[in-house]
């Protein structure tokens, strides 16, 4: 438990990716089985452990502590698990000789009867030190929130074993805590673990965005292009009677989409975009992401829902044909198999993602900028001879999105960054003009902390330090008037109405595209322009 607790303490406060990887790899190497496997599960979100209600924890702490003092403490710390870990009054201050191991704690917790939990937790809190108490309380109350993705943990495993992370991804969903066969393989003690059944979620293949010059020197004849549809990525698996629909992160969403599950008439694992509306074969239009959202995250689906928002899958790849793993075949071979399957599947629930013919990159560039359907957000470019590799490798698959939106905005607030950037003001809140109380004022519309070069950051930082009008903790207000201020060009992927933000708009993925020192603040955009972008989108759809 101690090793895991120390790891959490460091991870929470380590901003850099490499720093986190180093901490994780060291932990996996130095911690014995099965503890490290449970630690991995806790970080990757696959750990199942009996939960403890906050109310019970509060009762336990108040057995030994004045309620008023506890309230002062909780008010100060703000987090229940941390408060209890800090105020817990151990019977004795000496380090308990038997520090419980993480694996043992998990197994014991899961083996307890309902009436035994209270006494077990009390005893355990007495034996653990402060930081282990915190780790334990976080585990059993759910939600570690340590800023480490499952993906990063897998990368650390790959580093540990000198493997490629795609190999870990391929195996991942067939393994379970405490992952002993996985560690044995990574340490070279055994062969690669073998999957018992293909009826699991398989990590998906991801694309990289087309950056400057990425396509130079690539022969268009080596690639196929497909439209990039604005739905959600899903994986459909079926073997015997077992049929499942997974989201791209592996969440089982079968219950939400009975229409898809019932229509499945083949065995295998299929990769595609989940959409609502009509398939290409039904001659009804594909509907927007907003419509698809009506169907997402529902525990039960009414028949009215099913009629009003019919779901279908636009298929674009095949991982297993029957129980045969075809991920090692080329894109062309897999697509042939997929075409045959989709041909004989129900027409209103499945169609094949159409190919976009093109002969050179300029053509394709024109197509992605002006796609024929509003639900298209760009094109996908896939190498004809590429195999299906889990993860985001650069080269086999590219995504090339429609041009982002652009506006000119004025910097309003700046916050110091983290880690390497902790001495720079690098997180910027920007605003646009609108009329409030009869005069023009800036309203904040978003926040961006990347997009600029290091040299530009120096320049922004200098401006912030020289033009601060107010401070709120780590945040500085920046001088921004009609005639004086810093204008930046902000690029973003989408824009929606929002009731949560004062300005009433929320941007997707904003970043600072260019510094516009040439522009006076009064020439920056107005809120009405942003509103028109939202309305324009709606009209287009």
């Amino acid at each position, binding site marked *: 438990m101690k090793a895991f607790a120390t790891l959490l*303490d*460091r991870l*929470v*406060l*380590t*901003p*850099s990716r490499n*720093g986190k990887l*180093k*901490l994780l790899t*060291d932990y996996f190497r130095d911690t014995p089985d099965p503890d490290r496997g449970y630690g991995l599960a806790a970080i990757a979100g696959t750990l199942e452990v009996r939960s403890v209600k906050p109310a019970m924890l509060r009762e336990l702490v108040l057995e030994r*502590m*004045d309620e*008023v*003092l*506890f309230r*002062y*403490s909780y008010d*100060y*710390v*703000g*987090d229940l698990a*941390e*408060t209890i870990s*800090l*105020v817990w*009054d151990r019977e004795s201050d000496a380090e308990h000789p038997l520090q419980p191991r993480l694996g043992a704690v998990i197994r014991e917790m899961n083996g307890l009867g309902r009436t035994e939990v209270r006494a077990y937790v009390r005893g355990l809190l007495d034996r653990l030190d*402060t930081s282990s108490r915190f780790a334990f309380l976080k585990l059993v109350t759910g939600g570690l929130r340590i800023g480490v993705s499952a993906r990063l943990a897998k990368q650390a495993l790959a580093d540990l074993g000198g493997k490629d992370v795609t190999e870990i991804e391929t195996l991942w969903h067939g393994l379970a805590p405490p992952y002993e066969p996985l560690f044995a393989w990574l340490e070279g003690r055994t062969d690669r673990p073998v999957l018992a059944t293909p009826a699991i979620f398989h990590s998906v293949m991801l694309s990289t965005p087309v950056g400057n010059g990425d396509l130079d020197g690539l022969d268009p004849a080596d690639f196929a292009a497909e439209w990039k549809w604005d739905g959600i990525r899903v994986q459909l698996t079926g073997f015997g009677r077992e049929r499942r629909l997974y989201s791209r992160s592996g969440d089982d969403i079968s219950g939400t989409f009975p229409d898809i599950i019932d229509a499945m008439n083949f065995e295998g694992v299929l990769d595609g975009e989940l959409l609502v509306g009509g398939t290409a074969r039904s001659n009804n239009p594909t509907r927007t992401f907003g419509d698809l959202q009506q169907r997402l995250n529902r525990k039960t689906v009414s028949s009215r829902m099913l009629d009003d928002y019919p779901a279908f899958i636009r298929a674009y790849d095949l991982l297993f044909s029957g129980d045969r793993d075809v991920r090692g075949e080329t894109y062309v071979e897999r697509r042939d198999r997929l075409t045959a399957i989709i041909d004989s599947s129900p027409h209103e629930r499945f169609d094949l993602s159409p190919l976009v013919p093109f002969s050179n990159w300029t053509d394709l560039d024109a197509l992605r900028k002006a796609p024929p359907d509003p639900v298209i957000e760009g094109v996908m470019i896939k190498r004809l001879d590429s195999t299906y590799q889990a993860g985001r490798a650069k080269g086999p698959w590219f995504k090339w999105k429609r041009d982002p939106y652009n506006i000119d905005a004025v910097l309003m607030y700046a916050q*110091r*960054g*983290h*880690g*390497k950037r*902790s*001495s720079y003001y690098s997180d910027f809140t920007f605003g646009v003009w609108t009329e409030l109380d009869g005069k023009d004022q800036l309203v904040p519309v978003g926040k961006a902390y990347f997009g600029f070069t290091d040299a530009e950051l120096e320049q922004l930082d200098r401006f912030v330090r020289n033009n601060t009008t107010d401070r709120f*903790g*780590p945040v500085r207000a920046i001088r921004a008037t009609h005639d004086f201020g810093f204008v930046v060009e902000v690029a973003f992927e989408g824009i929606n109405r929002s009731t949560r933000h004062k300005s009433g708009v929320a941007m997707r993925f904003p970043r600072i595209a260019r510094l516009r020192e040439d522009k006076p603040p009064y020439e920056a955009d107005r809120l009405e322009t942003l509103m028109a972008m939202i309305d324009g989108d709606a009209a287009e759809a």
Partner: protein
Amino acid sequence: MRPEKLLFPTPEGLYCPAGAFHVDPVRPVDRALITHGHSDHARSGHRAVLATRQTLDIMKLRYGEDFCESEQAVDLGSELDVGGVAVSFHPAGHVLGSAQIAIEKEGMRIVVSGDYKRSADPTCTPYEPVACDVFITEATFGLPVFHHPDPRAEIGKLITSLKQFPERSHLVGAYALGKAQRVIALLRQAGYGEPIYIHGALAKLCDYYRSQGIDLGELRPATVERGNQDEFRGAVIVGPPSAFADRWARRFSDPVASFASGWMMVRQRAKQRGVELPLVISDHCDWPELTQTIREIAPEQVWVTHGREEALVRWCELQGIAARPLHLVGYEDEGD
């Protein structure tokens, strides 16, 4: 004599009318008794100052020779008569030269403890309990959440990190007076023999500590000579916390931000400050030390000066000890 007659709070600070002096006044006064050299307790501009030799020296270093009109040094443990009031200074264990001040008249004794701590510190004389009727205590860490761990274990974390990330500079934020020297001394005790780099703001005080016989090992200024940034790879650099948010910090390669402070007990505090490696090292009492000290001294009354008064007052009430907050203003937590 009633204690409220002997000593009471005024806008300038605690005032003793019988002796016509203030204790740790926050504004210039005629006669000041100073517990220790932190700038919120020891200010310049008083006419006459009574303090330990080391506190007077530290004030001189910080404010210059003319920080007051006349100074008088007092030895720890010896008793003085100030206008008919018996005054004596006793070690507080907070920083070099720090003292508690006992004030006695007509059988009523009040101890102003200033800032103090009970845990071991190689850079100053350890705290000694002084029996009294009224004990005036700070409550900087006066909440049950504060259980400061063994400082040696905290320094161990820094040493582990130096091994784990040998290519990164380790920037340790520590207040210039007391904490910085304690961190350096703890590193030396733990067997760390490499040169330690210090920010310019620490130089005079570190020199002074050394002149008082405290071993800090080899210290070098953390200045960059052209083309020699590699010097700081894997090195420990100690500086005042404010410098780390400043442009000064940019000279170091991929630094690990560390901060030695009692506040680091709470994760969110560390996170807000962007601290990557918190070291819970405090020059103040934690909750168990505060409550243990009050139990040990067993005064008639406890007065709480600054910090989290409400929790400590509540605790005293639960123990049946009369207690009240003094609501003094002007004391920040410079020492932590």
